[in-house]
């Protein structure tokens, strides 16, 4: 019921935002409500950037609500989900619409808290409680950074409205500090390495439609926050800010996908993969900053379009994949891939939709993930024209990282789909799996269809993005609507072009011709028999390749240093019939080297200061007095 209403509202909002984005000369509409701080009010503004992100948010919300009409019936305690779900959706919409610092931060916090409540739905599981704790700590840290950033932007006069901030033209150390704080604040929400630690814990803990929203949509709201501040409010970027964002993006992309490859929990794998995609988006944004600093407006527009296109794409296929994993969980009660297998027989429709999502996220033509990655590559190819040596070395290196992460992503999704949907069932639950309800399927198929459409007709998406880039970097890439055959030509026809529609048609046509010709003129008989397997078939499904054995070559090559991966085999002595044991050791070095020392230091300090709680009233008074004196002294010296 609630989901139905939410779905309708979100759909209406999507259509409205889409109309705003693509309409002729869409005016920027603003509204000021007498809410919030008395002397600021609550400003809301709908411009091109907001409308684009509104489309992303509400499309994801509509799909998730439709999915939840069916999926929500299996919820054990629906009252723990239902009140927070609409609040979460509303908060995300408000963040995107907000046009003053106060409203922005309040909505941002509202979004964090509502999603935290949704993460804690299954709070009886200690793992989920831990995920919730880490999430709330990281969210508070991020909000603190954003608060400080807005404080710096507003200045001592307190011009909290975005209009006032935009007019102030910050530069120098203030701008640097703001950018660093925004990277920390929005980056921790989006999941930039090394601030990503909460994400793979919290996203899988929530119910699947909420996981889809958190991964597919909420991280995009964080990206929106970064774009709004770095491109719109600050403006005039410096070249090294672009370099920092580029490096962070590149590292995030590769580290994220490597972590994903090591997982065997389906939802956690998807969550780590969100980290990778955020990296790709930030590569596009970093390139845009770098090009803008060099005055290459067209290149900046191309890079920004690529980044925003990936925002849209990722919201589509990541939601789709999370819905698929939710369907698997409903059908089998399992998230662990080592207990799945052969689901394509019991759940053919879910399997097909999940496969489309896997191909799209692996950046393979003719689906949409490839288009945005292709555009990022094209933007990288414009790199030699930048003036700074730092960027000249960074851009190709990041290009290599991007290519590496794309290849690793394909490996990761061969694993995800191959282990859970193909092969033989590894448990009885997987063998008994049946197809899920129609609402869930409809939602997945709509998203899969959108993935295909955005892949074969990318020109329309790019044209819709033109007003956004126009307002942010004052340039747009050429209009794609009029290019013959619906190709996309970002710079010039002799330089590069790609036509998803023709590629799709060619592949379909050749596959059909080959099939028809062979079935007509050669054999079409099919005989079923036992698998051949070089003459050594083993009836036990445990002898199949498992998720961790599939990743073994990659783990050995990349993980020996990054994860301290160590393998150990213990063989029984000769003649003994006891089983041999295989041990695998993996370390999360970011957690162990960065977070554990910080947590340790905080605990130590808290312990030290503990005795301050048990002082006499005399001592408290003297402490207050001392603090007052110190502050007055500081003020006196400052002036």
């Amino acid at each position, binding site marked *: 019921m609630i989901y139905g209403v939410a779905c309708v509202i979100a759909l209406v909002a999507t259509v409205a935002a889409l109309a705003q984005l693509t309409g002729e000369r869409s005016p920027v509409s603003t509204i000021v409500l007498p809410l919030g701080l008395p002397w600021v009010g609550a400003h809301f503004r709908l411009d091109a950037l907001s409308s684009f992100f509104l489309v992303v948010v509400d499309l994801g919300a509509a799909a998730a609500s439709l999915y939840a009409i069916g999926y929500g019936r299996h919820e054990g305690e629906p009252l723990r989900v239902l009140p927070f779900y609409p609040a979460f959706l509303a908060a995300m919409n408000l963040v995107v619409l907000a046009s003053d610092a106060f409203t922005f931060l309040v909505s941002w916090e509202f979004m964090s808290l509502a999603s935290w409540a949704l993460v804690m739905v299954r709070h009886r599981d200690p793992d989920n409680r831990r995920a919730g704790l880490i999430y709330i700590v990281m969210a508070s840290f991020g909000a603190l950074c954003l608060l400080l950033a807005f404080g710096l932007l507003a200045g001592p006069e307190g011009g909290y409205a975005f209009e006032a901030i935009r007019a102030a033209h910050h530069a120098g150390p203030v701008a640097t500090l703001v950018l660093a704080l925004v990277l920390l604040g929005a980056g921790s929400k989006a999941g930039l390495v090394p601030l990503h630690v909460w994400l793979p814990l919290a996203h899988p803990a929530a119910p699947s439609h909420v996981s889809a929203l958190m991964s597919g949509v909420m991280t995009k709201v964080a990206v929106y926050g970064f774009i709004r501040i770095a491109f719109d409010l600050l403006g005039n970027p410096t070249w090294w800010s672009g370099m920092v964002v580029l490096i962070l993006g590149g590292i995030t992309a590769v580290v994220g996908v490597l972590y994903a490859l090591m997982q065997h929990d389906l939802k956690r794998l998807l969550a780590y993969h969100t980290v990778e995609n955020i990296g790709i988006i930030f590569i596009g944004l970093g390139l845009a900053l770098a090009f803008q600093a060099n005055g290459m407006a067209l290149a900046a527009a191309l890079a920004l379009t690529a980044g925003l296109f990936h925002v849209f794409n990722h919201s589509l296929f990541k939601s789709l994949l999370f819905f698929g994993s939710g369907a698997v969980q409903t059908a089998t009660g399992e998230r662990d891939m080592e207990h799945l297998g052969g689901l394509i027989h019991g759940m053919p429709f879910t399997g097909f939709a999940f496969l489309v999502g896997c191909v799209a996220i692996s*950046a393979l033509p003719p689906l949409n993930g490839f288009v945005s990655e292709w555009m990022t590559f094209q933007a990288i190819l414009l790199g030699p024209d930048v003036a700074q040596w730092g960027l000249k070395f960074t851009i190709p290196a990041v290009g290599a990282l991007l290519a590496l992460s794309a290849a690793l992503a394909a490996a990761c999704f061969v694993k995800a789909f191959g282990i859970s949907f193909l092969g033989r069932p590894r448990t009885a639950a997987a063998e008994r799996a049946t197809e899920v309800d129609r609402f869930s399927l409809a939602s997945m198929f709509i998203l899969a269809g959108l993935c295909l459409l955005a892949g074969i007709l990318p020109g329309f998406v790019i044209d819709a993005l033109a007003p956004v880039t126009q307002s942010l970097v004052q340039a747009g890439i050429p209009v794609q609507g009029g290019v013959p055959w619906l190709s996309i030509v970002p710079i010039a026809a002799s330089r590069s072009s790609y036509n998803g529609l023709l590629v799709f048609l060619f592949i379909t046509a050749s596959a059909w011709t080959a099939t028809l010709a062979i079935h007509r003129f050669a054999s079409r008989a099919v005989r079923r028999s036992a698998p051949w397997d070089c003459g050594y078939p083993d009836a036990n499904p445990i002898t199949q390749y498992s998720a961790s054995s599939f990743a073994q070559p990659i783990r050995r090559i990349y993980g020996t240093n990054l994860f301290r991966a160590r393998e150990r085999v213990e063989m029984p002595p000769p003649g003994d019939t006891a089983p041999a044991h295989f041990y695998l050791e993996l370390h999360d070095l970011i957690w162990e080297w960065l977070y554990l020392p910080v947590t340790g230091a905080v605990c130590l300090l808290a312990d030290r200061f503990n005795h301050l709680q048990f002082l006499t009233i005399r001592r408290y008074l003297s402490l207050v007095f001392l603090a007052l004196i110190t502050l007055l002294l500081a003020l006196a010296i400052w002036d």
Partner: protein
Amino acid sequence: MLLVLLLAPLLTGFVRSVKARLLRRHGPPIIQPYRDLLRLLRKDAVLAHNASWLFRVAPYLIFAATWVAAALIPTFATGLMFSWSADLIAIVAMLGSARFILALAGMDVGTSFGGIGSSREAMIATFSEPAMIMIVFTLALIAGSTELSTVASFMLSSAVGLRVSLGLALVALIMVAIAENARIPVDNPATHLELTMVHEAMVLEYSGRHLTMIELSAMLKLLLYVSLIACVFAPWGLAPDGAGPIAYLIGIAAYILKLAIAGLLLALFETSIAKMRVFRVPDFLGAALMLGLLAMLLRFVSRSL
């Protein structure tokens, strides 16, 4: 499009017979691959009991993706009809799609050999694909375009000259081509029961017409890489856009000559080297990746290198 389809088995047959000659065997006749394909076509397809629809669709999709990619490479003339529909990056990615589906098909029946093949193929791809992208970047930065036709025309013109980055890219491209086509020293195309096999392990469960499609796509892929190397690094004889029939004839003759030379070199190389361990492959391909990156960095640093 038809030309590459007809020539692909011929190239494979040629390489096989040269290899046999080098080993002082008579070897099968050069048209043997055609006979093999026809024989397989006539046979029933045997499927495992638990093979899914993916297993039956995959061969056609793999074939289609490889064929389209191969058809987009200029063989004897630069002005192809639809060459603008996909540039070099898209061609590489299309081969990636074919590999993705093949790796999934290898895991479909749930045998340990299929899994081993898919897992190793995925590992090899994580090196060869980025290396390939780096090579594409280098070429694109030299020619100022990722369109293969434009690149080939540029390579024909006198503006190219001898460049360090081109040399590095050529070496890297050959290494990638060897790995991608499952040739020695990375994989052995002649094996059928070996713990180190990669490509053959994935297609172990295929038979009949499905196997025809898979084999034909493998042959097409070999032809594709040879054509790619020929059209970029040895573009002599390519007929320019709108040339007369004589230019096309010269182009075709030159193309067949290039294929023969490449086949000869490949056979020579394969007979003179031993296969390497699976975990040595990353060193081999890592070198290709680094060469590609180096070539690209050189282009970023200086326009004349």
